[in-house]
């Protein structure tokens, strides 16, 4: 047994934690090796110093307090009315506050999400179905090509401007189309403002006037839902012109 091995075993040897054979061999090594013997003495002193650790005295009042605490808590446990109450009892005030704050935040996020979804889903898109096939980009194609927010903001604004000028040209010709009439309707001006804000995820109103005399007199109405990939399209007959006469 060499000194290196003995050094590793001394912490166990000094408290009798070694098997008898190993302990005997180590003891015979200590008989002739002064350095290892000195190390063993150091460990013995360290152990006796460590064993001087006495727990403090616990007086009767302290013990009574402990016992009373245990008994009251066991009574509470046995008289526990419900699972919820038991959970609340186990939680500290800080944990309850943290949970309440977390629930409040989750509730706020859900409400905000629902509000956003509703606001986005209500924005209508009205468009003439009878636009010319050679116009800049048909709305259906645009829907397929552009996706998401970009289409709902910048693209929509550009298109709206274009239609407005077209509508003006038509009205100069003295033959106003359905698109011109629809553009003046109050709900359309409202959607125009929504589009300008450039924050809503929904598609702003888009109006395409009739581009030629051969076009069928039908109104194409599109409603952009909160999902940018879903757009509701339907065709309305020409009777849509009737509000114009009311105005």
């Amino acid at each position, binding site marked *: 047994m060499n000194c290196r091995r003995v050094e*590793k*075993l001394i*912490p*166990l040897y*000094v*408290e009798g*934690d070694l098997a008898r054979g190993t302990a005997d061999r180590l003891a015979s090594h200590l008989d002739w090796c002064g350095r290892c013997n000195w190390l063993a003495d*150091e*460990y013995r*002193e*360290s*152990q006796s*110093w*460590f*064993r*001087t*650790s*006495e*727990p*403090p*005295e*616990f*007086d009767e*009042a*302290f*013990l009574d*307090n*402990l*016992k009373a*605490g*245990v*008994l009251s*808590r*066991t009574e509470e*446990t046995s008289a526990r009315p419900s699972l919820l109450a038991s959970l609340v009892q186990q939680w500290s005030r800080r944990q309850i506050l943290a949970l309440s704050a977390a629930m409040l935040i989750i509730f706020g996020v859900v409400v905000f999400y629902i509000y956003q979804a509703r606001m986005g889903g209500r924005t209508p898109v009205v468009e003439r179905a009878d636009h010319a096939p050679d116009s800049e980009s048909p709305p259906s194609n645009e829907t397929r090509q552009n996706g998401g927010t970009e289409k709902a903001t910048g693209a929509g604004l550009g298109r709206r401007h274009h239609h407005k000028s077209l509508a003006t040209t038509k009205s100069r010709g003295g033959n106003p189309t359905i698109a011109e009439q629809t553009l003046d309707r109050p709900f359309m001006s409202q959607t125009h403002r929504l589009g300008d804000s450039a924050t809503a995820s929904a598609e702003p109103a888009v109006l395409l006037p009739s581009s030629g005399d051969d076009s069928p007199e039908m109104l194409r109405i599109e409603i952009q839902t909160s999902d940018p990939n879903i757009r509701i399209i339907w065709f309305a007959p020409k009777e849509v012109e009737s509000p114009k006469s009311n105005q």
Partner: protein
Amino acid sequence: MPGEVADIALMTDSLGLRDNSSKTAALSTASVVERVKAGDPAAFEELIDCYQRKVLSTSWRMLGNREDARDAAQEVFLRVHRYLKGFRSDQDFAAWLYRIIVNVCRDHMRKRGSRHQFASFESEREDGTLGALASDEDVEASAIRSQQRALIEEALNTLSTKERAALVLRDLEGLSTEEVARVLGSSQTTVRTQISSARAKIKQFRDRVQNRTRRG
């Protein structure tokens, strides 16, 4: 079955876990345990009387201060109350109780984290740890003891949780390596390694303190 119960009582007493209070010395641990399991509230009080000092001192050795030790001891007895129905008569009650103590103290250490403070002589005196000190000599002796306790607590804090548990059970509670291994759910080899490492660290700490004292 009665023979087994008597064996458990003997084993428990041989481990020195029971308090040696005159009032409770005659109580058989096994019979008390059986009565608690049968739902006798008075028996549970007797169980607390039997073991509270030992649970407190072991918790104190594991945690290093009085308040934490009291909280841990309360939790230990609550767990005993909760899980005693699952305790089998052929189990070693002392080992079972030590296991609960060690687990509760580990949980406590985890929760406590870094906000542990050593109990100073002044704080011990304030919270009544030192009891009533009659004379100046008592005060001096108490101060020395308190300082010694703080040093040893500081030394114990250099150990990992597992090393500390193994060393406290082996060297301060006086359990054998086999019993420590049973309580901690480890092999004897693992326990020996932990104990050896812990003793080496304690010695290093003491050497550092001695060197500091010599220089100072």
